[in-house]
């Protein structure tokens, strides 16, 4: 009974790592988020068109950037 009462407290004090949402945000640092957003809106689930545009150099991630 004592052990059962102690268990939740031990679990609560265990160190917690970053959430998946925090992990994804960390991983997106330096990524062309805008390019992915434009691509997602342009292609949706149409991966055939996306691949064709990648091969042709017309994908939103390949767009010209202003310097």
């Amino acid at each position, binding site marked *: 009974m004592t052990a059962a009462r102690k268990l939740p407290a031990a679990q609560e004090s265990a160190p917690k790592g970053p*959430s*998946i*949402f925090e*992990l*994804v*945000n*960390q*991983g*997106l640092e330096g*990524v*062309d*988020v805008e*390019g*992915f*957003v434009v*691509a*997602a*809106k342009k*292609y*949706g*689930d149409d*991966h*055939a068109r*996306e*691949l064709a545009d*990648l091969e042709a150099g017309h*994908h939103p*991630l*390949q*767009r*010209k*950037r202003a310097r």
Partner: protein
Amino acid sequence: MIEFDADELLDALNRIARREGLTARLDRGAALAALAEARWLSAGRPELEPAALLYAFGHRSKDFGPALWLFLRGLLRAHAAANGFELEMTDVEFATLSAGTARGEIEALELRGWFAARLRPLGQKSKRPPPKRPR
């Protein structure tokens, strides 16, 4: 080792999608199946996990919607870093791999090879030439 919770993963996908104004589909069954497949493909080896995650979620992309790719781009980089690896892959390379995986044109073993050439231990100097700048 891949220990993501399917509900937390879908919640994070939903939050990223809403923030960026994208569509996400939250299929719990597909998320559980993708995580199980990724665990099986990576066999507990952290260096195989990014490829396994991309394959397992990528060929189910219609169950998660267009927000999946931005989500996976961030997740794979951070997951690799958490396991001590730098993922040397441009956004365009990632888009090519993900679209090919979604179409069923890239198999799990092929993806594993792509990632093996692009994962290096953190702190080790890159052997790849820097990506070309867009003109």
